[in-house]
């Protein structure tokens, strides 16, 4: 059962600053929420480099290879037919489908990989949604969340956040 302290900022810059300070103070389980991506937060939270491009590259290559092998095997190996005197394995004619399969597999992987794996969605319930005010996180305000340690009272942390420029501060408890 997670307990989180949530703090709302009106502008992104103070939030980035606050996040950095909290992290530097050794606070763990930090996260920030914003209606649009904000500059500097990755570095403030020391998020590791995203693996999405790597996964995409592998998927794209696999898709293209699969597409090519499919064409070659079906038309030149499994059922070889004389089509208009063309060689059964006519590689130039296989380029378009190879490219398209590469893109297709890559796009599917990026989308579903991001959604399900990197974003960890679908997650319709999350402790942050316990706070009604958190609705502004997707509209016009900027929020920070910090996990409370086992048995820790929210008071100190809330105070610290206010000092860092937060407007509203609240804490929530994960429902079971």
């Amino acid at each position, binding site marked *: 059962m997670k307990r989180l302290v949530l703090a709302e900022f009106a502008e992104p810059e103070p939030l980035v600053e606050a996040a950095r300070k909290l992290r530097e103070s050794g606070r763990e389980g930090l996260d920030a929420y914003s209606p649009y991506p904000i500059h500097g937060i990755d570095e403030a939270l020391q998020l590791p480099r995203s693996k999405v491009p790597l996964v995409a590259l592998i998927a794209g290559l696999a898709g293209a290879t699969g597409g090519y092998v499919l064409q070659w095997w079906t038309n030149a190996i499994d059922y070889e037919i004389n*089509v208009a005197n063309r060689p059964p394995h006519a590689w130039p004619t296989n380029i378009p489908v190879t490219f398209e399969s590469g893109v297709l597999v890559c796009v599917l992987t990026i989308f579903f990989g991001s959604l399900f794996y990197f974003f960890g969605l679908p997650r319709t319930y999350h402790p942050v949604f316990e706070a009604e005010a958190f609705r502004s996180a997707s509209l016009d305000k900027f929020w920070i969340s910090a996990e409370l340690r086992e048995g820790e009272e929210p008071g100190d942390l809330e105070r610290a956040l206010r000092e860092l420029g937060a407007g509203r501060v609240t804490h929530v408890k994960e429902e079971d």
Partner: protein
Amino acid sequence: MPSLKLPILGSSGEGSPQPRTQWRSLDERERGLAPSGEFPPGASEIGGTSRREFVQLLGASMAFAGAAGCLKLPAEQILPYTRQPEEIVPGRPLHYATASTLGGRATGLLATAFEGRPTKIEGNPEHPSSLGATGLFEQASILQLYDPNRAAVLQEKNRPRSWREFLAAQHARANALRTKDGGAGLRFLLEPGSSPLIGELRARIQKLFPNARFRSYTAVSDDEAMRGARLAFGAALETRFDLSKARVIACLEADPLHPWPGSIPAMRGWADKREPGPEMNRLYAVECALSVTGMNADHRLRIRPSRLLPVALALAAKLGSAGGALAAFGRLGAKARLEPGQQRFVDALASDLRRAGRQGVVMVGPRSPALVHALAHAINSSLGSEAVSHQKPVLHDTETGADGLAELAAEIRSGAVDTLVVTAANPLHTAPYELNLATALDAVPNSIYRGLYQDETAQRCAWFIPATHPLEEWGDARAHDGTVTFLQPLVQPLFNGVSEAQVLAAFLGEGDKSPYAQLREYWRATRADAATAWEKWISDGFIRGTASPAESPQVRADAVAAAAQSARFETASPALELNVVPDYRLYDGRFANNVWLQETPDPVTKLTWDNAALMSPATARELGVKTHDAVDLGLRGPPVHAAVLVVPGHADGAVTVSLGYGRRGSEQNAAGVGFDVAPLRRASAPWGGRGLTVTRLGRRHSLAITQEHWSMEGRDPALDMDLSEYQGPGRERIEEGRVPVATMHTPWDYSKVAYKWGMAIDLARCTGCSACMVACQSENNVPVVGKGNVEKSREMHWLRLDRYFSGSEEDPRATAQPMLCVHCETAPCEYVCPVNATVHSDEGLNEMVYNRCIGTRYCSNNCPYKVRRFNFFNYTYNQEDVEKLRNNPDVTVRSRGVMEKCTYCVQRIERARIDSRVQERPIAEKEVQTACQQACPAHAIVFGNLHDPAQEVTKRHGDERHYFVLNDVGTRPRTAYLARVRNPNPELT
């Protein structure tokens, strides 16, 4: 063998045919009763849901009953024979010799039957009128056999009657007539015939009814020819032509290059001498409307119909000007008063004929005046033409035209006729207008009509007797040369038909006698060798050596000259002339319900599903009309609504219309198609007249024309050149059409397969007659799409005949070209198909797999020849069960949404392959013939294995004239075309 209803080659003649009984009635069929004992169970197996099962497995009559019930069952069933006829092996076709008659003369045929179900007609190679080939009418007659519109019920004043009731009624009446005045009130109006059996029946009837009278009538009669012969020879004689012996041929309104009855030998003879070289023949045509022969002529003179006689006279005069047999005509030249151009033509023709001597011949068409025929006889005789021989008439009657009909009508009106038996094909439709035959027929107390359909004549006759189709009847007839030919049925009458001989026998009290017994008895009595040779005759289809002996009559040149001297020539006048012709597809209208023929484009105009008022561009301009304009044609009688079709090469100042349209019978497919020309015809002038009026109606009548574009646009798809060009620069044009085109791909190696199929089409031989189109349609189950779809360019013919015009629109050169899938080795259609539905076979065929096709139509777009056809609708959906029986079981009936095209008759290849492999031998040359090849009267199309240098197709592929259509596109076709070379007279060029 009580079960076998089919005539089988070599089987006991006595046993096989059964007395023809009314084996079932119409209502029985409609109620779908189960097969009963009186049913011919000569069937093999009945299929269920799937079309081919049922078609493949059924005997004709069984299917008839089984169809309605079995089609709905989800499971499929097999109905084996109860007693299997030993000749029938299910799945293997049998071929029977038989014949069909048109114009009274027989063409020997071979009919293919699967389990007792005729599916295809071919020519009988041994028969003198067929030589193995067939015309459109013969090919299409198979469709007529299964025509669901055929009348099936014998009727008296629209009430169904049985044959026995008919016999009883007529017997009493005839007896009364006979005792009264020797049958003076009995009249017969027969289809012109040559059948010895009918001849005998007629003689016997005449004996029994001494005052009865027989007449024959047909719209396309030989009356003028007979009159001409009487004038020239003093006797009615028929003329036979052997064009293989002719080097210079002049056709005066004659059309020997279209497969009219008896024309096939002439076509073959002409085509055999079209190879460029010293032996090549030269064809002159003098005619009004462009005909098939005119399209093939080396020189053509277009004249109004009334100018034919002057031209013929001028020709005789020119030939006679130097003395000799024709000297009597020499001074008549001035009378002809030809225009300078015409005179030049005639002079050149005359000198060419003179040079050709015994190898020259003049032919005259049946519509031309007797004097022209007589003049031709005089010319041919003076030339000593070897191509001409004369024989006693093959037909029973030498007078078969409108005059006899006029006499009959007069007799009827005078009340002299009590009983009139009509077996002539629908005379009411073709009778001259002023006879008003309809009311005349109404006035006959006891009129009897035997016909295939409830047509116009049937509607005016008291009794109607459904007729048998030639494939349903035993009979005999004589070929154009007199050879005795037999008609053998392949199937029991599907529509309770009665043969003509039976109808006549009814007046001898022998109406119960089976047609087979009639025939057999007659021949047993007539020929001593019948006992031993009968089976051979039937299996051959004719009796060898029975051709009429040649007569050698003397021409009475003086009589002809005197007639010519006294003949009154129409002076040149601006009056518009009418020119009536028999239709290339419907003949005189008897084939009007035949959708294959309706949809076959006219060989010259490419018009389908209509007739039209044909006229030259100049005349059209003068009249202010254009193609598709609705007009009224008027001549002496009420006007006729027609549509204008402008045809290059038509004579100016004349309008040509064809017979056979505007039908008002019960034939559904014929209804509303075209216009009836009857009001324009008179007994005295059945083929036209002067003073035609053309009135614009301001409406449009859309004509379905399959080829709108006449010009080759400077391209060379159909090479057509003069001999001089061929021997000079033309070679290069031909060679351009066969130089190998560079290709990115290594050509496929076909050397390891035994057969490399290929085709060659000799354009010099092809006359454009279109018999191949119908043959292909019949062999390959090609559907008919109807006028609306033809207008939308959706006709399905796998093989089409392209017709191009070049030169001036007044005197164009017309070139016909059969165009079908050329089976390109680098076929553009194949690589664009996304589903492998059209690919190459190991032997190089461009295969079309209907069941794999999804119908993207991309292949058609990419086909430079546009020979692929698409099933835009389910064209076979409305096929009635009886029509399905006609389908070739070896060819898939295509569903909607798939492409189809010429397969080189792959079903024939595969059948031959399996047979040859089972027998462990290679496929022989003529073993696989494509349907078009087999039908072609001129041997223009050959097919075979290009690996075998001895085969005709390989030789043609090496011929100097061979080229590939659209060679520059790089398709490497398997079909080679041989350039057409014309042989013009240098004096005229």
